[in-house]
């Protein structure tokens, strides 16, 4: 198991280096000039050149790349051009927010998706199966920003005023105005209320895909001989389904973790934007619009790194959930 893990980790290193290179090259090729941010009316071309020199943009591309990679490896991500704050601080500031939102949503989505997928597989072709399949597909294929807007419309705007529901949920931000004046319990409540809509929206988007995947995986497993063996032993049906079948059906589902794991860092651009959630997705969009290259570089690298990490994690988890891989003899 250790050898297996070490091999996987080692294989990730060149991959990350590749990610860094591609990110750098793509951004260098992208149109636009970071120095133009400092452009003011009446500024002389010499001043602009001076700014470029200060930013190191006058050096040949491979030199820029070398410098960037070197400082990058030392953990120095440079400074944000727009705010002058170190990129690292800028990212660390918003990262916990994204982490909170994504972790809650992914957790809920996996719990709900696995449960629904199993229920569908057990009752294949039943009305329940059809309804859930339709609903899954509906949320899966819906643009997330539109869903987010609808959620705001229903649970925030119309809930209190038009329909007179007792609670209408806050549509944006992480805390209310005057958060600092609240007592400790009220603060927790306020944060939770703000979390509901964005987390629920993200959960809805993710659950459908997971449920479909689990359903198909379960249908595959439930036909296996060892399921018949489990029944022939006299085990109750719930144990046959939730222990013997699900445990095997979850093996391919681990792949999904590699797919969704990067969300923990990257956040979801659209959902964060609609709900004004101060997370990574929003930071990235803002930085791209401002041509704040150091932030974009660091952020993109982080996303890429998370994809690699997510896949690494999935590989390692395969070893945990599937004993046939664990021994490393396969």
């Amino acid at each position: 198991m250790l050898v297996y893990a070490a091999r996987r980790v080692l294989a990730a290193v060149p991959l990350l280096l590749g990610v860094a290179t591609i990110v750098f090259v793509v951004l260098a090729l992208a149109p636009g000039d970071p120095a133009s941010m400092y452009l003011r009316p009446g500024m002389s071309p010499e001043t602009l050149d001076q700014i470029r020199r200060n930013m190191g943009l006058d050096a040949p591309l491979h030199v820029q790349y070398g410098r960037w990679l070197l400082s990058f490896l030392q953990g120095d991500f440079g400074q944000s051009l727009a705010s002058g704050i170190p990129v690292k601080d800028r990212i660390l500031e918003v990262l916990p927010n994204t982490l909170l939102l994504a972790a809650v949503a992914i957790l809920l989505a996996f719990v709900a998706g696995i449960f629904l997928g199993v229920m569908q597989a057990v009752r294949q072709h039943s009305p329940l199966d059809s309804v859930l399949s339709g609903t899954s597909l509906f949320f899966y294929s819906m643009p997330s920003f539109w869903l987010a807007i609808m959620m705001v419309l229903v649970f925030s705007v119309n809930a209190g005023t038009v329909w007179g529901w007792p609670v209408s949920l806050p549509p944006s931000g992480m805390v209310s105005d005057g958060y600092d004046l609240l007592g400790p319990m009220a603060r927790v409540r306020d944060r939770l209320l703000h979390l509901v809509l964005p987390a629920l929206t993200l959960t809805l988007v993710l659950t459908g895909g997971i449920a479909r995947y689990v359903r198909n995986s379960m249908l595959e497993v439930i036909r296996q001989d060892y399921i018949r063996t489990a029944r022939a032993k006299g085990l109750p049906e719930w144990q046959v389904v939730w222990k013997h079948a699900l445990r095997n059906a979850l093996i391919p589902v681990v792949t999904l973790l590699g797919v969704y794991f990067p969300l923990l860092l990257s956040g979801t651009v659209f959902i964060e934007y609609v709900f004004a959630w101060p997370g990574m997705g929003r930071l990235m969009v803002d930085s791209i619009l401002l041509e704040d290259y150091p932030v974009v570089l660091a952020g993109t690298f982080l996303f890429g790194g998370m994809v690699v990490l997510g896949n690494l994690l999935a590989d390692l988890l395969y070893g945990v959930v599937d004993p046939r891989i664990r021994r490393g003899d396969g």
Partner: protein
Amino acid sequence: MSLLEIRNLRSVFRTRGEEARAVDGVDLTMERGEAVGLVGESGSGKTVLALSILGLLSHGSGRILPGSSIRLRGEEMVGMKERRLRQIRGGAVAMVFQEPMTSLNPVFTVGDQVLEAVKAHRAMDGREGWAEVIRLLREVGIPEPEQRAGAYPHQLSGGMRQRAMIAMALAGSPALLIADEPTSALDVTVQAQILELLKRLQSRFHMALLLISHDVGVVSRVCQTMVVLYAGKVVEKGPTQDILRSPRHPYTRGLLGSRLFLKDRRRVLRPIPGEVPEANAWPEGCRFHPRCSEAWHLCGREEPRLVAMGLGRGAGAREGDSRVVGPPGGSLSEVGPTDRGGEGRSRARSVRCWLFSGDLGEET
């Protein structure tokens, strides 16, 4: 009261949206401690019959038709509540499947899977249960059971896996063990070991054994009684030795003629032409007649009935009990032979077969 009494069992199986009658009116009686061999080609309904006994058909995509009866120690199992069925499965009736490779769950250790069976049927705590697991693994001849219990199925050889399956089946101290082609997926050398094991366990625990196989040789090594199944129907049953010596039904003769003998290489192999028809397209009349070399015009229209004949065949057969019964129309009224061996065969052929059988279960 017999241990197991199956009367007019009819089971259907759904394939591609169509219901196929895989088992069609089977009667079978088994006594305590008796070893019965169920023989037939693939597609003859052997496995569906076994799954019907365990009430596992509805979990696939089949069901038992009304009018069927399966009594275990007098208790009707058709239509039985799932809760009671679960107690019987792995308890009074246990089953060993054909493919030891795929019949064990790949993500749990062998010991855990046996432990599950132990706990499902006996009130034992963890420590007692584990000791029982080790005892069972030792019982079925797995060396170093303490270590092997912690192994995953893929770490064991095919033979070891099948032994583990048998240990799992023994966990509930079954009165009846159904073994569905337990050796077909194994190497020849291992096959003999597993058969010996089943034989030993059967006599040691005085267990009834229903051994399902396409291989007459396998059945003849273990079972006193043999039942030949073709196209969902019993075509012949009786003491194994008698059937081997004087098979009455052309199909049985065909099965015996298809065997390979190592000792006698000059012997001509006489395979049965064709294949078992699909279960949703049984032929009219006798279901074997399209493949039967001895069929005559009646066979395509009417079905011969299985009749008791020559009770206790072999030495000292009571000749007066024997008869040949023709089709309901009575076109065959000749009194048939009870001769043993080749002579019986030739006589049977002369009356174009129809069925002869000695049902020991009725007698005792």
